[in-house]
């Protein structure tokens, strides 16, 4: 039993099921991020937790109480919306205390709670303004203030940062993280931005097509993605997926791939868990940062394989240099040190950290478990 339990929950509009048997158990104080591309059902799931959408089947419980059919205002949750949803006719102060007023909290207490939240979020000086007179970042803070003042069991965020410009988004991201570390309230946070998901969460649920594809810590999701979708969705640039043939040679397993000249090259896997795949095709997944020059290779890596290939394009990007090449007919991106000496069209000795390599079944696209 978790603090927030989503058990076997489905959602259907008429005959179309948009969420299929979702099972997530969130512990108290966790920061769960629901991430996935547009239309995968993130908001629908969040709205069901909030009580804004009916649950077609299954059960949601918060703090030990089944909340199916319980009105949103009685679930002891607070929500921050993508558009902030500040009441345009009320001042910032009234916006923040509206919920308390509706719950019959007396005025002196309301004012005290408002003052606390306002100083926490540094919006004291804005309390008498209307939302229309605020900048995007200030609106964002007020929306968070409105949620904080309720002192809820669970915070629900629906893409709260997607309307901010890039710089402010990063600042607010840090601030949300700080706030969570301070308050330790359980959070469910929806985003389609995988960086936000990786940086903020204690656990991530990656969703696609109404299914939870994988539920795990950021590290698990990043290092051992459950399938090709998760592998390519999480991480930027995306994980390279290259068709390869498994060759077993004695105790060792190799991935045989073609370089850009059509020559076959072999990369040894760390452990031989691919025995039964001998001679068969797999999809080899390698993160861009696992492909470097020999000197840039991770010193702690147990198994670095070398591969000579023709360099395609090099893109210096400040802190990193991105290098593209072709492997088994696919474009592959490598992320290298900024000061690496490499030139287009050059034959180059790439170092591949096979500790971080994963293999997928090409039919089901599921990861092949070691």
């Amino acid at each position, binding site marked *: 039993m978790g603090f927030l339990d989503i058990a076997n929950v489905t959602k259907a509009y008429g005959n179309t099921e948009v969420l299929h048997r979702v099972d997530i158990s969130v512990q108290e104080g966790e920061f769960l991020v629901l991430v996935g591309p547009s239309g995968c059902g993130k908001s629908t799931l969040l709205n069901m937790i909030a009580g804004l959408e009916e649950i077609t089947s299954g059960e949601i419980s918060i703090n030990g109480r089944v909340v199916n059919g319980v009105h949103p*205002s009685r679930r002891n949750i607070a929500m921050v*919306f993508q558009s902030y949803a500040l009441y345009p006719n009320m001042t910032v102060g009234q916006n923040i205390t509206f919920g308390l007023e509706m719950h019959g909290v007396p005025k002196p207490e309301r004012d005290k709670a408002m003052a606390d939240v306002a100083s926490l979020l540094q919006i004291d000086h804005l309390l008498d303004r209307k939302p229309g007179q605020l900048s995007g970042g200030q609106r964002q803070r007020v929306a968070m203030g409105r949620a904080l003042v309720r002192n809820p069991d669970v915070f629900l965020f629906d893409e709260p940062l997607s309307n901010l410009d890039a710089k402010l988004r990063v600042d607010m991201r840090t601030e949300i993280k700080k706030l969570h570390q301070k308050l330790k309230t359980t959070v469910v946070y929806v985003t389609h931005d995988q960086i936000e998901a990786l940086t903020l969460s204690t656990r991530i649920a990656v969703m696609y097509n109404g299914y939870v594809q994988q539920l795990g810590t950021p590290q698990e999701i990043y290092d051992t993605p459950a399938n090709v979708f998760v592998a390519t969705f999480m991480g930027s640039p995306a994980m390279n997926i290259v068709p390869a043939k498994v060759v077993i040679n004695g105790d060792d397993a190799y991935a045989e791939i073609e370089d850009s000249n059509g020559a076959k090259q072999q990369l040894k896997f760390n452990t031989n868990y691919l025995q039964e795949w001998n001679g068969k095709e797999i999809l080899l997944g390698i993160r861009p940062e696992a492909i470097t020059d020999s000197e840039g290779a991770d010193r702690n890596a147990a198994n670095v394989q070398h591969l000579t290939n023709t360099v395609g394009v090099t893109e210096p990007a400040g802190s990193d240099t991105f290098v593209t090449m072709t492997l088994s007919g696919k474009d592959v991106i490598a992320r290298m040190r900024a000061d690496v000496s490499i030139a287009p069209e050059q034959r180059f000795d790439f170092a591949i950290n096979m500790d971080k390599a994963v293999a997928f079944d090409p039919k089901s696209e599921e990861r092949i478990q070691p």
Partner: protein
Amino acid sequence: MSVASQDTAVRTGGFVRATIYLVLIMFALFYLVPFYVMLSNSLKPLAEVTGGNMMAIPQTWTIDAWLAAWSTAQIGVEPTGLKPYFLNSILMVVPAVAISTILGALNGYVLTKWRFRFDNIVFGLLLFSCFIPFQIILIPMARMLGIMGLAGSTPGLVLVHVVYGLGFTTLYFRNYYAAFPTELVRAAQIDGAGFFRIFWRIMLPVSGPIAVVSIIWQFTNIWNDFLFGASFADVDSMPMTVALNNLVNSSTGVKEYNVHFAGAILAALPTLLVYIVAGRYFVRGLMAGSVKG
């Protein structure tokens, strides 16, 4: 407004501009001349109206015709002037406008924010009422009013106008609220506000522009209505328009044109006033849904 029109106006040469102004002025005159005739003749003694030039300004200025139209002219059999009927119209128009606007707002709120099964069919049926010709419902409505005991009374007229206006007011508010972010309603739900509280505290305060549209539309239609007034009202509840018709028809012997003109202006005055006071909000409200400002 002026800022916006400067931004969007296409620059034109002097000649084109002059032509445009000329045409506009001619149209303005075309509409103003009848009003001028009514006004100037209502301020003349009767002899000057019948004997002189209709377009001339008064030689002897007098407001006798206005006083007569207001309080002593023969309306049907009673020499009461238009005053009591003016009051009847007010007593009919104010509740009818208020009720139909409030109900329209509630309908629009429900139809956009509390969707239910077949809501679009309900809305379609409401809209359909906008297209039913008045004449068709006269007899069934008379029967209904009779059954409800409201025949020949001001409440009866109010009911008829509310029912007839509901289609339009619902349409206005529905379209306005359709652009109103549903997330606000959801936020208010989480905050613990109920159905009416959300309407009252969140929706209504931002409904100003569309409320003005609804009020102007309903006010002019109901105030100017003649058919329902003539069909469903008796002497005690007869509205201004019907009384004006009686004033013009019931003069025996000489036609007191100056009194008729004064009465007609009196009958038109309230709608004129509403337009002058709220007209610019009318345009703004009609535009509100379509262009985001």
